[in-house]
């Protein structure tokens, strides 16, 4: 029953709440990597051992509740269809890596989808916790409490010198990856983000587009996260990230003002053209959809468009991904069929909102 709930809605219940600075920061996430002390890591573990880890969670944590997150539902990868797996990845509830190792992996997902605990990913346990908007401190505090709650029942692999022991040396120490998803259209448009990236890297932080590293970030959505997990406390890592994100927010707001001031009409034109494509297009590729949705969101933030709620964009960003489109169509679609479905789905959603 609950799996159906995870599959149906494009945006998770927690995303419907507004967070601080949510015009620019979409979400804040903390991920903690943990392992059982006496079981080999999933990378080389035997089937029996992987099953042991999975059973432990099935027995100990199934329908357990932790704080406001209500009950956890265990979703086994072996029970899912390929499209269902893809939808969960598109919702960021599980990682692509978890689906590779399907036989003995699972995720415990809280009812409001704010917490997911991945089992037998690269590490035995990957705790993932999201907050809407810019709330890294709160995310860290809650993730740490959730970690304490698990630790009461699990003997973690921990070493005084190296900290939490993980399969990959890039995670050892705190095992923590803190990240913030940001919508930075003005910094992307003026190419300022490219100039800022090397300085951010020097602080041990990484900037990447959500659709992969290298070329420009599609949809102007960037993820900023820590790279270093050793030698710094969790609080220090979050503080460093916090100060960089704060500066990026300021810079983005400034760049938006400058753009409005210097080329207001060009900006307005771009926004309305994108809105036109979304509203009237019949074939839309995913990258074009992402770009137009980013423009539309900027248009809402700048006050050009006032009858479309911001949440529809978060929703459409997920809903127009291949997995969701196929889940929605209830059939496997070729890329060109998807482009047509995508266009009609966007038109439908936008009209729905306009009528209200």
């Amino acid at each position, binding site marked *: 029953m609950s799996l159906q709930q995870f599959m149906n809605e494009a945006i998770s219940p927690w995303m419907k709440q507004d967070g601080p600075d949510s015009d620019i920061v979409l979400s804040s996430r903390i991920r903690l990597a943990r392992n059982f002390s006496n079981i080999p890591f999933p990378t080389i573990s035997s089937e029996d051992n992987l099953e042991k880890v999975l059973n432990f969670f099935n027995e100990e944590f199934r329908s357990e509740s932790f704080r406001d997150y209500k009950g956890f539902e265990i979703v086994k990868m072996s029970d899912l269809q390929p499209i269902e797996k893809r939808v969960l990845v598109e919702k960021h509830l599980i990682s692509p890596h978890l689906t590779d190792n399907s036989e003995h992996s699972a995720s415990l997902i809280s009812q409001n989808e704010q917490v997911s605990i991945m089992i037998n990913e690269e590490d035995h346990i990957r705790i993932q916790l999201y907050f809407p908007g810019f709330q890294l401190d709160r995310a860290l505090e809650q993730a740490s409490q959730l970690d304490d709650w698990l630790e009461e029942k699990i003997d973690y692999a*921990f070493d005084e010198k190296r900290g*939490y022991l993980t399969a*990959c040396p890039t995670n050892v*120490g705190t095992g923590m990856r803190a990240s913030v998803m940001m919508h930075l259209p003005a910094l992307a448009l003026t190419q300022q983000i490219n100039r800022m990236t090397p300085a951010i890297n020097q602080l*041990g932080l990484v900037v990447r587009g959500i659709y992969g590293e290298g070329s*420009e970030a599609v949809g102007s959505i960037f993820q900023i996260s820590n790279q*270093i997990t050793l*030698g710094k406390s969790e609080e220090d890592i979050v503080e460093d990230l916090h100060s960089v994100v704060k500066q990026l927010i300021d810079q983005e707001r400034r760049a938006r003002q400058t753009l409005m001031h210097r080329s207001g009409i060009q900006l307005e034109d771009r926004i309305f053209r994108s809105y036109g494509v979304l509203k009237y297009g019949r074939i839309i590729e995913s990258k074009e959809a992402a770009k137009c949705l980013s423009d539309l969101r900027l248009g809402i933030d700048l006050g050009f468009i006032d009858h479309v709620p911001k949440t529809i964009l978060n929703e459409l960003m997920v809903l127009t991904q291949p997995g969701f489109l196929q889940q929605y169509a209830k059939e496997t679609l070729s890329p060109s069929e998807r482009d047509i479905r995508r266009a009609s789905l966007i038109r439908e959603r936008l009209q729905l909102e306009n009528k209200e």
Partner: protein
Amino acid sequence: MECQRCHNRAATVHLTQLMNGEKTEVHVCEQCAKEKGYMHDHEENFTLNDLLTGLFNFEPKQSPNGQQTGTQQPKEQLKCPKCGLTFKEFARAGKFGCAECYKTFDERLNPILRRVHSGNTHHDGKIPRREGGNLHLRRQKDQYKSELQRLIEQEEFEEAAKLRDEIRSLDDQLQDREEGES
């Protein structure tokens, strides 16, 4: 902007080529970029893994006195007694097999960790309540000690005396625990 090659899709890859000192700009779509070999699928995964493996294939320098320590096994034979992973396998995959591997490969880890974590090799973060052992008490003791130093310098002797007692009590607790463990 449309793709210069297929004139069909939008150009999303923008490159600047330098040939015989002349700069040419290339604007192509992703598909054409892949076909022309400008970019590869899963480029990110490939380079990251490649980079890591490069870091691990690292010959440790000889010790300062120029001698290899007698207990050190040759690289190929270093093998985790718990999970059976050899250092060679670790270097190839860039992944540990189990918690014990960290102890087995300990001597070789510092250069790797230093490179990955900006020079850091020691954990300075959270300590789990149960598995953390006496680390909580020891960290607390270190913290009190530096605080004590500060109080003495500021001639706040009354407070300092209280803290000194606290440190003694921590010492007792540590001693009890260590005796209990052995």
